[in-house]
């Protein structure tokens, strides 16, 4: 057997699996996005040109869902990276000696986002929730966390509290990987504290920061679970992310063609974003 035959055989199982599980659905996506479909004629869709795309692009809810996802992804990624960085650098001296602390700090990552959302349904409930209880007790008042005005802040905080540990973990590892000689050399030159961080440590962690930001942005952008269980499509649509929008148009309103056209648009946008992010990361040497 030649090496290239061998290589092909080694790759075959995964390639076949991907073709069936993703290749076929992608083709279906493209065909159905140009068709009139409903639950009644799922097997025999009729071609309707680009009507689904036109109706999606004219749907204000599609745009508000896209805007929500973009805003949510950027805001949470930004907050998580800042908080994670501060925590990692500030706590590093004690965590170094007590690595079990990492387990405590990354515990929220082990909880399913859907379960986290359900926990907050209990925690924020105005009669049985612990948070309103304490806020009334200490501050004399408690906001309506899920009202239209407050709901973005609420879901933003929930996502940030659950995933700051991710950024923290990456940054702590990167911080610990900075060679000791590097710091010593800088210390000899008189760099200390913030200056040391800003001029020596931070630049060395930059690739990790970029990656963490990107991963968190992606996850925030496609957010579904925690928001869906917490507010559903509620709060006047103020928390409809793009994933929730696609889900709702598929199941609730039966606009399958529109849901699929939105999927295809999302696919193309993600693909382009990945392509450029990949080039950018490669250029920065990450």
């Amino acid at each position: 057997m030649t090496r290239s035959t061998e290589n092909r055989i080694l790759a075959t199982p995964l390639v076949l699996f991907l073709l069936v599980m993703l290749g076929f659905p992608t083709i279906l996506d493209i065909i159905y996005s140009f068709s009139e479909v409903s639950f009644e004629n799922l097997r025999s869709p009729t071609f309707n040109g680009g009507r689904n795309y036109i109706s999606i692009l004219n749907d204000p809810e599609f745009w508000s869902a896209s805007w929500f996802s973009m805003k949510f992804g950027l805001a949470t990624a930004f907050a998580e990276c800042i908080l994670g960085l501060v925590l990692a650098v500030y706590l590093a001296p004690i965590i170094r000696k007590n690595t079990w602390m990492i387990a405590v700090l990354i515990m929220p990552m082990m909880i399913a986002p859907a379960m986290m959302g359900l926990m907050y349904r209990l925690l924020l409930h105005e009669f049985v929730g612990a948070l309103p209880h304490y806020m009334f007790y200490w501050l004399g008042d408690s906001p309506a966390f899920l009202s239209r005005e407050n709901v973005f802040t609420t879901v933003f905080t929930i996502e940030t509290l659950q995933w700051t540990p991710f950024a923290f973990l990456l940054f702590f590892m990167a911080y610990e990987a900075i060679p000791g000689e590097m710091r010593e050399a800088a210390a000899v030159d008189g760099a200390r504290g913030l200056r040391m961080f800003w001029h020596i440590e931070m630049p060395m962690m930059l690739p990790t920061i970029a990656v963490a930001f990107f991963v968190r942005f992606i996850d925030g952008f496609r957010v579904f679970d925690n928001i869906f269980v917490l507010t559903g499509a509620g709060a006047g649509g103020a928390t409809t992310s793009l994933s929730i929008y696609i889900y709702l148009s598929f199941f609730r309103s039966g606009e399958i063609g529109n849901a699929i056209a939105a999927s295809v648009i999302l696919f193309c946008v993600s693909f382009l974003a990945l392509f450029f992010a990949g080039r950018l990361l490669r250029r920065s040497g990450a």
Partner: protein
Amino acid sequence: MSQKVKNLIRWLVFILVALIINFPVLATLSASLKTAAEISRNPGIFVQSPTLENYASILEVSERLNIFSYLQNSLIASTIASVLPIVLCFPLAYAVARRGYGKSLIFPTVVNLRAMPLIIFAIPLYMMYQSVGLLDTPLGLGLILAVVNLPLALLILVNAINDVPFELDEAARIDGARIFVILLKIVFPICLPALATVFIFSFITAWNEFLFGLMLTTTDAVPMTVGASFFFSSGGGGVQWGVAAAVIIVASVTPVVLGILMYKHISRSMIAGAVKG
């Protein structure tokens, strides 16, 4: 300020942060140990008269709610979703690590899946599953969750095989051993720790998944995460908060315990996944 005082403040910050980010878990645990009467009388975090009655009552199977079935479905689907990525990625990882095969197309494709919003595949999968009878089956759910786990599995395995000394399999090769024998008898045993990491990590991810469970199952194959949300959409009479809290705890025990046991390995592979992704 002396170093001691500085570290004391660090400890206080650590405790405060740990309490804040884990507060939902603590509050849910506390509610799960209260009677219904105590929950409305005392919504705070401290339990006055702990009881296990909420846990007892979720074990009662009803037509609408069946926690044993949810747990079983999650177990089956998560096992499929953790074994399959290993079986599929291990051979390719060898080709990638040893020969640079697939570095231009298949490797980046799989790794970039990590960043794809997977809902775009959910609707066509629904249609596909419907026509082949995989809709509402643990197998169907496990298959798509295996896709979710492919990127990290491939990354970890490529890194692991890179760490296997090249001379080992070259020597076997010269002795005339066939590639599959080399993979199974030499590389596989050395990679066991990495394989265990992939398994556990995939298992946690699959267990915690919600979107595909929601879309691709209806009654028979409902996984634990989706089943838990059923307890919040009460069938008349409002949500029983104590019971609902107990269900969340039951649903979260498995991934949390696995995660705590594995946290050192998980952090290491997360680095691999993130930095090389």
